[in-house]
């Protein structure tokens, strides 16, 4: 799978993110995913004759917020431009985008690969509108009919272009992961790659190691998951390496990733590349960004995933891996901190509570809820306070860790708190067969005389043993269970 050592892989990513604005980029239509076809449209996003776009202020704010998070320079003025090509999912046959004067430029994103950190440059960030969706059998060119749904047409999109500074498919995937985490943290995009909220195209070229100038690049489209980004780029790097080894020249072209088949295929070569005929959108005036507004947005920026991850390691002493998992979304990181706080960290009785909380979140909560789904985490039936309540019951010995896992599931299903469930269902520590068996074994070991008496037919000896077990469990044992277990054990001795 790896590219021959003699080549250096050069990758740049273009990421399109749907912004979580209530209305579309240039009209007031709503943006809910999955609504009935064409139910969220108006003359503007249907490209009717005579309509005009109006910039969504919130989308600009989200763009600025993201630009600042990537340390980009937010341009004091930017402009929209028309990008022309004919495609029936695009009602005006041009897309309102940004070209020569984007919203922001020159930022960076720090990524971590194999424990090392790298800084990847971000060339530009701009705003544009999304296109609609076509529904047809086979390819559009040959289909007898195609239906078009303009619900997505005009949805606010943010395109971010990295510099060609990624050096492997793994780095590309890491970049996309880190990028997505930032967007989710900023609450500007839901990051859902399956629904297409986040889409990625890649440019990849190879060059002999040591060469400074870039090789001929190929653009790959249709990369809709982290796995696909990595697989497609691995395939493409290998394909290009083989071609170069064979003395062939790489053709500058656009290739489509066929995820099911695991290869890229040529879509169009440079000769057939679109001439987009960009020109400044005359229906919109240049956007002048008030410094004070940008500063206001900067001041309100949340702590970003990387900073928070580092703080989790230093402040809570959790391993780097835990910190990464816990910071996959702002909601989850908030959940973690709230849980730790709810449990409390009084010195002396602290144990390793932060790590325990982390373990429970990673192994139990995230098995039930997707950690990057902000809403799911926020609406979790087990609130941070309830998680803390459960952990407290383990800590004070009321229940065992094993029972606690059952209680956790019951909390998820019912939304009740741990103490209520434990009380109702008699799930205290001593109702735990395994724990109780251990106690019984030790009580039996400590009272060989009583066992002998019992074997000799002195039934009252059993009562003494039960008493010892009850004493050992602080009186919390379930007597029936103790009796049954004891009988079972005695019968086997």
């Amino acid at each position, binding site marked *: 799978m790896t590219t021959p050592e003699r080549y250096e892989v050069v990758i740049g990513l273009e990421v399109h993110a749907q912004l979580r604005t209530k209305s579309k980029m240039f009209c007031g239509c709503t943006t809910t995913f999955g609504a009935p076809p064409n139910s969220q449209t108006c*003359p503007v996003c*249907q*490209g*009717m*004759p*005579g*309509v*005009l*776009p*109006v*910039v969504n202020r919130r989308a600009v704010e989200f763009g600025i917020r993201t630009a600042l998070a990537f340390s980009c320079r937010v341009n004091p003025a930017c402009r929209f431009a*028309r990008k*022309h090509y*004919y495609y*029936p999912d695009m*009602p*005006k*046959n*041009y897309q309102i985008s940004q070209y020569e004067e984007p919203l922001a430029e020159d930022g960076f994103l720090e990524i971590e690969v194999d424990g090392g950190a790298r800084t990847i440059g971000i060339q530009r960030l701009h705003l544009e509108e999304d296109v609609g969706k076509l529904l047809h059998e086979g390819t*559009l*060119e*040959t289909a007898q009919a*195609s239906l*078009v749904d303009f619900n997505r047409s005009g949805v606010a999109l943010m395109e971010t272009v990295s510099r060609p500074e990624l050096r492997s498919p793994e780095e590309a995937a890491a970049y996309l992961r880190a990028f997505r985490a930032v967007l989710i943290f900023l609450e500007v995009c839901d990051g859902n790659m399956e629904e297409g909220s986040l889409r990625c195209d890649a440019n990849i070229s190879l060059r002999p190691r040591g060469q400074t100038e870039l090789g001929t690049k190929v653009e790959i489209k249709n990369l809709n998951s982290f796995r696909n980004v990595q697989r497609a780029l691995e395939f493409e790097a290998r394909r290009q390496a083989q071609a170069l080894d064979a003395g062939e020249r790489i053709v500058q072209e656009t290739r489509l990733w066929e995820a099911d088949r695991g290869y890229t295929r040529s879509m169009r070569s440079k000769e057939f590349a679109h*001439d987009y*005929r*960009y*020109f400044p959108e*005359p*229906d*919109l*005036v240049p956007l002048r960004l008030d410094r004070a507004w940008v500063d206001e947005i900067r001041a309100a920026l949340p702590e970003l995933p990387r900073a928070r991850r580092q703080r989790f390691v230093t402040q809570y002493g959790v391993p780097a891996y835990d910190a990464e998992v816990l910071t996959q979304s702002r909601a989850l990181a908030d959940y973690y901190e709230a849980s730790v706080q709810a449990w409390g960290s009084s010195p002396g009785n602290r144990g390793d509570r932060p790590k325990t909380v982390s373990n429970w979140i990673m192994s139990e909560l995230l098995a039930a809820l997707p950690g990057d789904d902000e809403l799911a985490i926020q609406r979790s039936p087990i609130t941070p306070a309830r998680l803390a309540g459960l952990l407290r019951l383990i800590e004070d010995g009321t229940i065992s860790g094993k029972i606690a896992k059952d209680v956790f599931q019951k909390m998820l299903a019912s939304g009740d708190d741990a103490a209520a469930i434990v009380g109702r269902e008699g799930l205290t520590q001593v109702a735990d067969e395994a724990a109780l068996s251990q106690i019984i074994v030790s009580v039996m070991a400590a009272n060989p005389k009583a066992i002998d008496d019992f074997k000799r037919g002195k039934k009252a000896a059993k009562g003494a043993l039960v008493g010892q077990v009850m004493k050992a469990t602080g009186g919390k044992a379930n007597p029936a269970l103790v009796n049954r277990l004891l009988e079972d054990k005695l019968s086997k001795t």
Partner: protein
Amino acid sequence: MHRPIHELTDAYRRGDLTPTAVAESYLARIAALDERVGAYLTVVREHALAAAQESERRWRAGAPLGPLDGAPLALKDVLCTRGVRTTCGSKMLEAFVPPYDATVVERLRAAGAVVLGKTNLDEFAMGSSTEHSAFHPTRNPWDLSRVPGGSSGGSAAAVAGGLAAGAFGSDTGGSIRQPAAFCGVVGMKPTYGRVSRYGLVALASSLDQIGPFAQDVEDTALLLGAIAGHDRRDSTSIAAPVPDYMAELPRGVDGLTLGLPDEYFIDGMDPEVERAVREAIDVLRGLGARIERVSLPTTRHSLAAYYIILPAEASSNLARYDGVKYGLRVPGRDLVEMESRTRAAGFGAEVRRRIMLGTYALSAGYYDAYYGKAQSVRTLVRREFGAAFARVDLIVAPTTPNVAFKHGEKEDPLSMYLNDVFTIPGNLSGIPGVSVPCGFSGAGLPIGLQILGRPLDEARVLRAAYAYEKATPWRARRPELV
């Protein structure tokens, strides 16, 4: 009943006339005469009568919506009207019924206006003669063998011929002022951004502006007042208060300085036009205006710049007509063939020519040489006007180099384009301008005086036009249609 709107509404107030009677009279005239003029593409008889009856009830109740309540108006068929087809004079949109009203139409309805119908134009507003409508040509009411000008020829002819009390058009390079001059009516292009373009089917977005046609300057002020003002649906509309144009009218020209640009009196222009305009300037001088020569040397590059910017923007604006969503669709074996056939069948020769010109001008490698350069010229034109307006209050000039020409006379597109040489700079610079009748040729054809003003200074432009109109007899003359 063929009187200006302000007289009609005075009569409504007094009870001498009713909006219904007036609407019926106009509809009857249209039925009788429009076959010869061809001003209308669509007449909305039932809509008009219903609106007139509502207006009548309001007048009777003593609660009219304003000075346009019950005014029978016509709209150029590039203004979207909810439920009424809007063709743009093109086969492409022959059956297109917009689901929404243009902002201007909304405002007119809110003012109680009675819309009689939609008027003819050169296809997608590309042209200066209204010969290039896909449906039929419009004829000049003063001489039916001649063109009414264009592209808003239907609206100009309707007002001149007494087929509407007032009308609206759009002006991208002179499409209101030139037909107003040819038809002997008042036509005004407001400042770019003064009137919302929302719902105006775009030709060239950075140049298009909606404006009124009227029988006199007073009506022009009324009609402009009803549609002017910021609209949040048009980001290029200007958020500035709208003055009371009517109140400004009587202030006269005494003390105003009028600039006379050397470049607007050119070789080859009709001497009768030049004479009429120079006489008009004498009249204005007589009314107390100071006349000063100004120079606008970039005028000679305006036409070239315009014929880059306009086709470029038009090629983009017209890309949406592909047979996919609305309008004409000519079937094909596949998508590309369907789109190509639709566009070939739906667009006329002039539209296709401009789409090709514009597509070329925006192509990679040519953008800087054409579109970029044209925009630089535009900046120069704007600066020149700015410098001139630092010295003078208004600029006066002919609206057109000649009077209305005969149908079929200008076959060569270039000679047609030259017709707009005096009006185009106003669009490139975005400034307001009016054409007001200033006499007749020996053959009895109207001549127009153009008055240009500073951005957003429509009030002063109208004020000068009003003073001139009051001092001259031209508006009393009517074409003999019947």
